């Protein structure tokens, strides 16, 4: 890099450019990267641990691409029948598909193959798990609000595609679990009215299992879905750069700026370093923890099934739904309607995903808030939103547990039937309870904020007055903290409308308006509004007065040196 020294006394002289600088100039002369780089390497990102959760997903995806390429070098996506003749003694001479045989070969005969398989599988679990926690962070902080609604939708699509990608990968080795999973997928497809049997017939190229499903899933798994994922991840990140990252409120942070550190060198180092940490954790898990031991499951055989047949975790809620569903099956005009499969396995996941995907628009419709938001909210600042997600999480978590009901029964010595009965009730009652508790909890925290603003924080110093009364001393919180807490808006609680004008004529949208007004009322009415300027000033004045009253008092007793009004540097309790 050339440097120009100007100290005002000697003339500026250009030093000889370094090799890196020369190379950069060479490239810049030809493709003009300087313009793009100048802007982007100085791009500022705010700093907070919760902003790095999506990064876990991104780096897991990179690991998936790398380890996946390795696996394709040996995997044979074919259902042709072969006789196994590899290293695994228990299966030598057994008939199996080429896909399963090559998976065994990767596991036992390819150097580093088992490690790569396990890294690939763990990375897949982490990829989707990281997307989930990232989604929760974005949701709870309100980071999906305008202008980021589209990016939220893209994120939801990424989640869906990630789950599908995981399921296709789970199905490829053609082991017993793969085949069992595919059989369930086949059953779910067939449960759809009218189109079900056609869907299944076209996908499997005939009756299940056929001999084309593995090659087809392979193409979907290594070409179609990764391509879509890559494109959407690209769009997701370009939108992130375009919108700029959201930030927590605080002194100096507004809706118009971003306070943080530049891409170069701080975030390049942090993000680059985080990649190696994610890779390290994945590699450690791949090396130490056995995942999907296909050699124990055996080749797929439609006549076999094993206890502990479960999908990977991200399909667990779906599995749970099917396990606790009552056996509702009706026959209408000679056609069987298998509601016990169609409702939990086909319809409900779609509904659930749609609710999540379109949530930003639903909330916007209720609140009528169309402003841009770049400052994040704490979960307590939107109690209904927080409670909604907590309820969803409860619903999801209970179903997740129900999906492992047999494992729960074995490990905790429970009764399988009782777990099922319990879950049938809990998935309905649990989310409602969770909603109420989380909502009230958030409102209580708002109240706590209010108290801190108006009465200060609890110092833990107990004072005894001359007449024997004990009181705890409260002290005002710092200006910065007060600023941060009061960064949120005051919310106008709308009056309930009747939907009629002064002459009693209902508006064409009266029903909609009334519903919306009721929802809006529910949304805001119980919130604790932040104090007005006058209230804050009165509180501050009161606190000042308190301090002055006690300023001259001499304290003989030990411990008063920590009352918050003295410099406590070097202070300690006196030894007696």
């Amino acid at each position, binding site marked *: 890099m050339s440097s120009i020294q100007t100290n005002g006394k000697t003339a500026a002289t250009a030093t000889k450019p370094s090799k890196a600088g020369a190379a950069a100039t060479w490239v810049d002369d030809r493709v003009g990267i300087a313009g793009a780089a100048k802007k982007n390497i100085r791009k500022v990102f705010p700093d907070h641990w919760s902003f790095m959760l999506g990064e876990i997903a991104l780096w897991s995806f990179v690991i998936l691409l790398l380890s996946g390429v390795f696996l394709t070098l040996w995997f044979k996506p074919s259902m042709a029948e072969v006789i196994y003749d590899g290293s695994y003694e228990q299966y030598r*001479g*057994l008939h199996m598909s080429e896909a399963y045989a090559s998976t065994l070969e990767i596991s036992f005969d390819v150097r580093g193959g088992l490690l790569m398989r396990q890294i690939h599988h763990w990375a897949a679990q982490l990829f989707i798990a990281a997307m989930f926690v990232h989604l929760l962070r974005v949701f709870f902080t309100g980071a999906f609000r305008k202008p980021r609604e589209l990016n939220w939708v893209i994120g939801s699509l990424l989640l869906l595609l990630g789950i599908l990608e995981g399921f296709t990968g789970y199905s490829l080795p053609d082991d017993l679990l793969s085949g069992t999973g595919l059989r369930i997928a086949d059953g779910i497809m067939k449960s759809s009215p009218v189109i079900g049997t056609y869907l299944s017939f076209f996908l499997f190229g005939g009756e299940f299992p056929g001999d084309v499903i593995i090659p087809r899933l392979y193409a979907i798994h290594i070409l179609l879905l990764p391509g879509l994922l890559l494109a959407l991840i690209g769009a997701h990140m370009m939108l992130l750069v375009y919108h700029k990252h959201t930030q927590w409120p605080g002194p100096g942070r507004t809706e118009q700026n971003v306070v943080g550190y530049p891409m170069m060198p701080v975030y390049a180092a942090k993000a680059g370093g985080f990649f190696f940490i994610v890779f390290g954790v994945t590699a450690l898990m791949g090396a130490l923890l056995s995942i999907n031991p296909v050699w124990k499951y055996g080749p797929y*055989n439609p006549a076999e099934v094993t*206890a502990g047949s479960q*999908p990977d975790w991200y399909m667990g809620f779906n599995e749970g739904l099917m396990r606790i569903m009552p056996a509702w099956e009706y026959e209408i005009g000679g056609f069987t309607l298998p509601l016990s499969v169609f409702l939990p396995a086909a319809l409900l996941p779609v509904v659930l995903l749609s609710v999540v995907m379109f949530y930003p628009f639903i909330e916007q419709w209720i609140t009528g808030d169309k402003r841009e938001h770049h400052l994040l909210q704490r979960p307590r600042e939107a109690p209904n939103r927080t409670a909604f997600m907590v309820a969803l999480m409860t619903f999801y978590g209970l179903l997740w547990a129900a999906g492992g009901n047999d494992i729960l029964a074995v490990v905790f010595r429970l009764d399988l039937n009782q777990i099922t009965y319990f879950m049938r009730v809990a998935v309905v009652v649990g989310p409602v309870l969770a909603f109420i508790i989380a909502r009230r909890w958030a409102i209580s925290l708002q109240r706590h904020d209010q108290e801190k603003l108006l009465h200060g924080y609890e110092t833990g110093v107990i004072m005894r007055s001359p007449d024997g009364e004990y009181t705890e001393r409260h002290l005002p919180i710092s200006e910065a903290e007060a600023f941060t807490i009061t960064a949120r808006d005051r919310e106008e609680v709308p009056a309930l409308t009747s939907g009629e004008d002064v002459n009693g004529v209902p508006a064409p949208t009266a029903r909609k308006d009334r519903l919306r007004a009721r929802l809006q009322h529910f949304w805001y009415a119980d919130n604790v509004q932040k104090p007005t300027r006058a209230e804050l000033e009165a509180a501050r004045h009161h606190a000042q007065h308190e301090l002055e009253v006690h300023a001259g008092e001499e304290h003989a007793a030990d411990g008063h040196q920590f009352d918050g009004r003295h410099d406590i540097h070097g202070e300690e309790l006196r030894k007696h």
Partner: protein
Amino acid sequence: MRFLSARLSAKRRSPLAGVVVLLMGLLFTGGVSATLSSAVATDDLASDQALVDQGRQLFLVGCASCHGRNAEGVVTQDGDSQYGPSLVGVGAAAVDFQVATGRMPMANPSAQAPRKPAVYNEEETRALSAYVASLGPGPSIPTSEQYDPASIPDDEREESLVRGGEFFRTNCTACHNFDGSGGALPGGKYAPTLNGVDAKHIYEAMLTGPQQMPVFSDDVLKPEEKRDVIAYVKSLEENPGYGGFSMGALGPVSEGLFGWLIGIGGLVGFAVWIAAHTAKSEKRKKA
């Protein structure tokens, strides 16, 4: 009409004819089954009268309260169920399995008798087996050539493993899990783990079908085939953990648990750590 037929048959046969025919039929089928069935062999144990007597003494103290003083079973007051079933004809193998694995005597009546440390020693178990075997013919305790995988000739070992594995995956994994780590059954019952179970006890379990388990009699599954299954189960146990720690070998549920706790938990921890180490934390130093 009824009167007529009764009168006719009364004329033709003696009143005892029906009973005689029934008895002859029973004798015939019983005799044929006794000669054809290899499982119902008379037991050497039962011929040792001293052992049988010792077993009877133990039985009266430890077993009779549920199984009855003559092992005829005790029916509950409502008559629907039993405290303990009749042990006539269950054979020495059943007693050896139940008592040597600690399942009997049962500690408390529950959905299923769990495996626990054995109450009786080897000698006492033999005596109990002898007593029950003396009550009626039943499967006898297998010999070590029957169940021990080590008795398979080396050149047949691989074939045995493959055959046993195929049988295991077809008939056993549905309850006992792919790795033999056990699984749940309805109503609080369960298929116990096979890890660390004696080859002999696995054999006896297949032979006698204890508790929820179906019987794999010698007609269904020949003794050599039982040995193949045991060889496969034992080979799973002897295999090194190729992939690392198996997390209970319970399938994707425990994988998901570890993925979330260690994987995401650890990585979020790292994220917190990275975010806490920046220029920001240096600026916060005391002025």
